């Protein structure tokens, strides 16, 4: 599949934004979140920018962006529509929390709205994943790691953003969170990043296993002519590749997958894991470890998402002569 820049930006930024809101909402709902107005407002605003930028980027992928509102109507059948509805609905509890910034953190209103934000944000990421995992012609996206991966990558990158927000916020007031709890949060973050990395590794392994098998979707299967023998495409319908092959016949990534995967793995998971681990042991280093982890995970996820699209094979390519 052609890795379209707008869709990559959308899935990475929106994933991180809704992941950040999910953690913020969950911590508020459970009543374990830091006190202070800026501790609430900064992650809310960052999530607002990330989610908003992601959604704007997604409209750049549309042929008719100004009609995007129509995408909100078919939530009964379409995961894309569900995603759009939930993505916008998440802004409601986020804005409500901003309005309630002066309320005490343990009031029912704040905790309830926090939980609502967490649920809507999580559901948004889930729907984004289902847009891709529901497409039967793309074997790579039918793997169970796709939904789990999207959720974990969104939550992991969101957690790194929350860490960065809190580390800015708490730099001068470290005492508002007890050191043990702080180390506990960072250990949790490290475990989350580790889990996301393991799921991604297992996705890539299973993808290689799929690609190593004789292709199920060859020209013979696609045309139904395999009952007569081995089918080989002689001629494409036109001299120039048209929409289908431009969109779905992308082969570049499968040629260079190994170095790209190693790079994505290191940047998305290994480095942030290391940073969170060190920060848990050496709180003084947090001021530069958090931004390092953040830059690394976001850069890594752009690569990871580029590979997610570029490595996936669409069955329709079977009709055409190999590129």
């Amino acid at each position, binding site marked *: 599949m052609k890795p379209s820049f707008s869709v990559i930006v959308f899935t990475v930024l929106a994933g991180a934004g809704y992941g950040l809101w999910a953690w913020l909402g969950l911590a508020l709902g459970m009543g374990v979140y830091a006190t202070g107005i800026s501790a609430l407002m900064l992650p809310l605003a960052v999530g607002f920018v990330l989610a908003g930028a992601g959604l704007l980027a997604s409209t750049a992928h549309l042929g008719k962006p100004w009609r995007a509102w129509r995408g909100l109507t078919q939530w009964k059948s379409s995961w894309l529509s569900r995603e759009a509805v939930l993505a916008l609905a998440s802004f409601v509890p986020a804005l409500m929390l901003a309005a309630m910034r002066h309320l005490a953190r343990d009031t029912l209103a704040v905790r309830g709205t926090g939980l609502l934000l967490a649920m809507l944000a999580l559901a948004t990421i889930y729907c984004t994943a289902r847009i891709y995992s529901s497409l039967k012609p793309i074997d790579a996206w039918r793997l169970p790691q796709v939904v789990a991966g999207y959720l974990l990558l969104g939550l992991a990158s969101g957690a790194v953003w929350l860490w960065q927000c809190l580390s800015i916020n708490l730099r001068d007031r470290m005492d508002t969170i007890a050191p043990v709890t702080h180390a506990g949060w960072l250990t949790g973050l490290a475990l989350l990043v580790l889990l996301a990395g393991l799921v991604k590794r297992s996705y890539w392994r299973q993808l290689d296993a799929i690609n190593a098998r004789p292709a199920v979707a060859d020209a013979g299967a696609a*045309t139904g002519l*395999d009952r007569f023998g*081995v089918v080989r495409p002689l001629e494409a319908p036109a001299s120039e590749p048209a929409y289908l092959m431009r969109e779905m016949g992308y082969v570049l990534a499968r040629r260079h997958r190994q170095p790209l995967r190693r790079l994505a793995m290191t940047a998305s998971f290994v480095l942030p894991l290391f940073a969170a681990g060190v920060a848990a042991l050496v709180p003084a280093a947090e001021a530069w470890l958090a931004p390092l982890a953040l830059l690394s995970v976001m850069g890594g996820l752009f690569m990871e998402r580029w590979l997610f699209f570029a490595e996936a094979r669409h069955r329709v390519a079977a009709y055409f002569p190999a590129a």
Partner: protein
Amino acid sequence: MTALPPPAKVKLGLVIDLDICVGCHACAVACKEWNDGGDFGPLLDDDPYGAEPHGVWFNRVHSYAVEPALGIGNTGCEKASAARGINASASAPADSPTSNPGLTVHFPRSCLHCETPDCVTVCPTGASYKRAEDGIVLVDADKCIGCQLCAWACPYGAREFSAKRGTMQKCTLCVDRIYNETLDEADRQPACVMACPTRARHFGDLGDPASAVSQQVAARGGYALEPELGYQPVNRYLPPRPRRAGTAVAAVTAPADEAFDANQLPTPLRWLDRLLSR
């Protein structure tokens, strides 16, 4: 609405005879011509007079070489067929197309107007829909936002996005011809069917077992593309008929005791023998 309508009684679709299609692309050209000016056009091209012209076609003709299962070792074919649970060499009787050196099959590909298509249900806007009355799958160009998810959801490559129009386009089964009362009744057929010089394309109601197309499908063993994917395509392809197998025919049709070596004959008689053996 992108929710699918209840299963329709009428299932309009095409039956394409791969045995007699000669790959002339007349169907594709006629389709492009009609639909460029029809209710669902235009079918724009990108860079039409440039070095790499390409654009939207609802119908495209591929050509394939089918190398027989028997002959030069059947490993390749068995591998291909085993992956789908088809035993090509076992299911091929002596007079099947596989008993000859090979086939060239021209394969027109267009929307199959599936009964349970994902291209309709994934649409976030309701632009992509399946008609309840006859099962035709259409795109409402006034609602389409051009997200292209429907094209990703179609394994048959039926949908093509027009970057110039910003919307998705696809075969309409010439819905603006087949119900068009300003045309002669004989002309109320899809443009591709009207244009086919070998009559390899047929249009009709595949939901009615008594219709001409349904009977053709029953008689010729017409098949659906990749039914295992579960979209229930309506269109059917009629497989290539058994081919004559060159000199093997003479050996099969002539009684064994009358066998003779045609190469012993004088040249004119040898030609006559070859002519009559056809």
